[in-house]
């Protein structure tokens, strides 16, 4: 987990989700203000922000990594006997395995839910994204509590079969893969599901009619047509797995890129941490570019009109029965992580040792985290940091989206790429970048050292979650006809007035949805925080992690429940906001601009 967070509405969805939006009409600078320099006046500060807090810190990390011994740190990646190369290989292997597993699960789920009608289908479809919506740390913890050697399921099976050892327990890399599969298959599921929805069923029939067997039809028609969706799904899963930090942390897989960054940083070897961060950053950016390139290619949409694909009703009694049982198991598996956290949140700290589920229950955990000032502090910290970051994100994100969508200026795509960089960089790398850039005073920190202060926290959140507001605003803008703003100008409104009373008003639901999402991701943030927090700025996720270390599982879960409840509230609210707009815009909200 970590890196680009998987979430219901913001996952940067692959091409197949919607056909590329028709390029929004852009206003010429002159049409807005009468000065063709106007766009640059607006864009310059934005460009400076992106440069100062995203690009320049990345370069600082690179200079840090080559600073003392001119690149010696990089030779580790070339020699076969060493942690460096092994970590890179592990990270890549884990990512490849995650892609395969997520691909199988996600595409299979998409087929089941899109092509068949069976009892329980609607319920499964409603909750299919729940595991992926959990905050990264608490999500990974829930899988640990469920499936590791000390987890509920292996112990329950052990008791059931009376064996010596827990049954089906996952550990190490297998554990990481379980977490990745459950939290990242939506990338494939959403892509394949959208592609299947857009697929014309008569194309399949045509293949059968021409004599193709079922197997041949799959091989020559269905799979090739799903390829664009699968490739973009694969790229996303690969990137996200590469950035994953909490899963290797909890399942003790030290030799991955993200873990090495963390370990070297905590050991005080900043140059080496920077080296890992630079390599990981470069790989992530390469994947970002690959994705951009691939998204430019066409996807296969149905060319015919008015043909809906039919779900095949499962009619044979055995099939229905199996489907029912399968659905129940599916619901249980999908809800198990949240249920586990909910259950454990009511367990007395220290009481759960070798039992299948905790033996003593109490509401004390919740009282503690609210009443005890020291326990409440992380909550306050998280809310404050997220609020500050979100405020900044709204201002900068909305303006960048506006500039990219509506203004014509040299370097427009650079601005776009700047925001995408923020999205592509793993949280761990973002943290290292900020440490490298702001461990001494800089122009962008007004000469202050930011490391080990409060301000580096909201700054990290700002960088990580800026893309969310940018993307949702940009989608909302694509839905809003520029002629409306021109009409306001025609009726005598100044540009700021027209912008505020017309454009801002119309894109407000999109902005609010994006801002809520950024805020809630801030409250759940762990990956970057753990590298830059101080005891005064400890956020919730770090408090959860520390509680876990002190075996205060109940308290940790209680904090986790808080995050989960917040997430579901936000999902509900933004669902409402989305419904206010057209379904098309909801689709576009998941897409990158331009």
């Amino acid at each position, binding site marked *: 987990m970590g890196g680009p967070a998987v979430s219901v509405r913001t996952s940067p969805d692959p091409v197949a989700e919607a056909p590329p939006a028709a390029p929004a009409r852009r206003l010429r600078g002159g049409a807005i203000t009468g000065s063709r320099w106007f766009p640059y006046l607006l864009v310059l500060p934005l460009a400076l922000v992106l440069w100062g807090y995203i690009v320049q810190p990345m370069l600082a990390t690179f200079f840090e990594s080559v600073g003392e011994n001119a690149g010696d740190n990089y030779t580790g990646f070339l020699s076969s006997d060493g942690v460096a190369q092994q970590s890179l290989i592990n990270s890549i292997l884990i990512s490849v395995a995650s892609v395969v597993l997520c691909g199988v699960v996600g595409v299979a789920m998409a087929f089941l839910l899109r092509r068949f009608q069976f009892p329980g289908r609607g319920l499964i479809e409603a909750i299919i994204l729940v595991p992926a919506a959990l905050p990264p740390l608490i999500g990974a913890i829930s899988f640990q509590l469920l499936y590791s050697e000390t987890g509920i399921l292996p112990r329950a099976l052990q008791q059931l079969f009376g064996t010596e050892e827990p049954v089906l327990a996952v550990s190490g890399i297998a554990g990481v893969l379980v977490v990745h599969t459950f939290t990242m298959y939506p990338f494939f599921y959403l892509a394949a599901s959208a592609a299947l929805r857009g697929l*014309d069923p008569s194309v399949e*029939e045509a293949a*059968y009619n*021409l004599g193709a*067997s079922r197997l041949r*039809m799959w091989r020559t028609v269905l799979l090739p*047509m799903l*390829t664009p969706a699968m490739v973009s799904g694969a790229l996303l899963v690969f990137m996200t797995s590469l950035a994953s930090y909490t899963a290797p942390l909890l399942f003790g897989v030290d030799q991955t890129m993200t873990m090495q960054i963390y370990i070297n940083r905590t050991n005080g070897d900043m140059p080496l941490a920077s080296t890992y961060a630079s390599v990981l950053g470069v790989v992530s950016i390469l994947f970002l570019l690959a994705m951009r390139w691939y998204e430019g290619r066409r996807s*296969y949409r149905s060319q015919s009109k008015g043909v809906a694909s039919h779900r095949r009703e499962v*009619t044979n009694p055995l099939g229905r029965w199996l489907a029912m049982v399968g659905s129940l198991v599916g619901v249980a598996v999908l809800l198990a992580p949240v249920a586990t956290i909910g259950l454990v949140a009511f367990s007395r700290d220290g009481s759960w040792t070798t039992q299948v589920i905790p033996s003593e229950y109490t509401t004390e955990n919740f009282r503690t985290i609210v009443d005890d000032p020291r326990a409440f502090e992380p909550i306050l910290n998280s809310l404050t940091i997220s609020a500050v970051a979100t405020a900044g994100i709204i201002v900068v994100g909305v303006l960048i989206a506006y500039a990219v969508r509506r203004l014509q200026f040299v370097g427009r795509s650079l601005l776009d790429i700047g925001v995408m960089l923020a999205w592509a960089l793993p949280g761990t790398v973002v943290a290292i970048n900020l440490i490298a850039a702001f461990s001494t005073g800089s122009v962008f920190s007004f000469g202050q050292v930011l490391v080990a202060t409060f301000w580096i926290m909201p700054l990290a959140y700002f960088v990580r979650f800026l893309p969310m507001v940018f993307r949702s605003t940009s989608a909302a803008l694509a839905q809003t006809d520029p002629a409306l703003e021109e009409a306001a100008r025609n009726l005598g409104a100044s540009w700021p007035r027209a912008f505020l009373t017309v454009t801002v008003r119309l894109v407000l639901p999109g902005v609010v949805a994006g801002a809520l999402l950024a805020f809630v991701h801030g409250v759940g943030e762990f990956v970057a925080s753990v590298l830059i927090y101080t005891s005064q700025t400890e956020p919730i996720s770090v408090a959860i992690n520390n509680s876990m270390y002190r075996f205060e599982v109940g308290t940790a879960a209680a904090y986790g429940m808080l995050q989960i409840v917040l997430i579901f509230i936000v999902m509900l609210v933004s669902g409402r906001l989305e419904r206010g707009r057209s379904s098309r815009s909801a689709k576009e909200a998941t897409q990158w601009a331009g």
Partner: protein
Amino acid sequence: MVEVRLDAVSKVFSRSGEPAVDTVDLTIRDGEFFTLVGPSGCGKTTTLRMVAGFYFPSAGRIFFGADDVTRTAPNKRDTGMVFQNYALFPHLSVAQNVGYGLKTRKVRGAEARRRVDEALEQVHLAGYGGRRIDQLSGGQQQRVALARALVIRPRTLLLDEPLSNLDAKLREETRLEIRRIQREANTTSIYVTHDQAEAMAMSDRIAVMNGGTVQQVGSPEEIYRRPANRFVATFIGRSNVLELPAAGAGPEHVDVTGPDGVTLRAAAPSNHGLSAPATALVSVRPENIRLTVPEVAGSLRATVVETEFTGMSTNVVVDLAGTELHVAAVQVPAGLAAGATVGVVLPAEHLWVVRP
């Protein structure tokens, strides 16, 4: 290539219980161009899809020649289907689309290339083999779909409203093309359409369907001149169906009393079963009714309700003793306008008794 026979075929979709197709018996002769025509929801597409194998009948059997294909999978039937939306594979080129069926039939290499080129030439798309599907116009896509269905030399060619996505002019050109190509290949063809004019123009024989049942099977001329029942009479062309009391009957005619009390002799099918006191349904085509000045002997007096000039003819709606009558007149009496009184002549040789 083969005779297609539907033997009491019914299809009930599980959800409703109402049969979509109800006991359809049809024999499509070898090499014939046969059309299923009817309003939407009449079961014509369902029937075609059962022949293609996309639905299995709930009852009845389907034969291709001597082969019982009732439960045969669609890919084993050797039919070539042209879909309403063409269903071209968007990820394959034009030539690959056309060659798809050859590949499944293990026709490879030079032979496959030759046949693909031939098929493309046949539909006037020679040289388009390398194009992507989305680089073609609607009419071109339609022809690729046709070439793809024909290149495999199927036992039967199935066409599911293939012209409905084309504009009017292209539709007429393409229907001539389809018919030409079908005649050249002499492939048994089943064509589905809701457009009765298209059905009349293209078909050797037509089956008119309504409510899941076949109303009448016959040549276009038979169906037009001798409609079996009121539905066929009004669906094919726009016939006037008059309810007139029968005054007497012969084996192949019925004498009916016209609106002015004059007895008219209408031809009737041999088993019409009508006799004196019954009401006969008499169909008369708009173009067979003559308009005259009111005084002409043998004409009925009627009032003009509405006129519409279409160029070729004038459509006139007249009120004949409380019944609205549609008349398509090539020549109309001078000064004809709504409210005018005209004479209407119902020529006995064009009267035809239909069933309800």
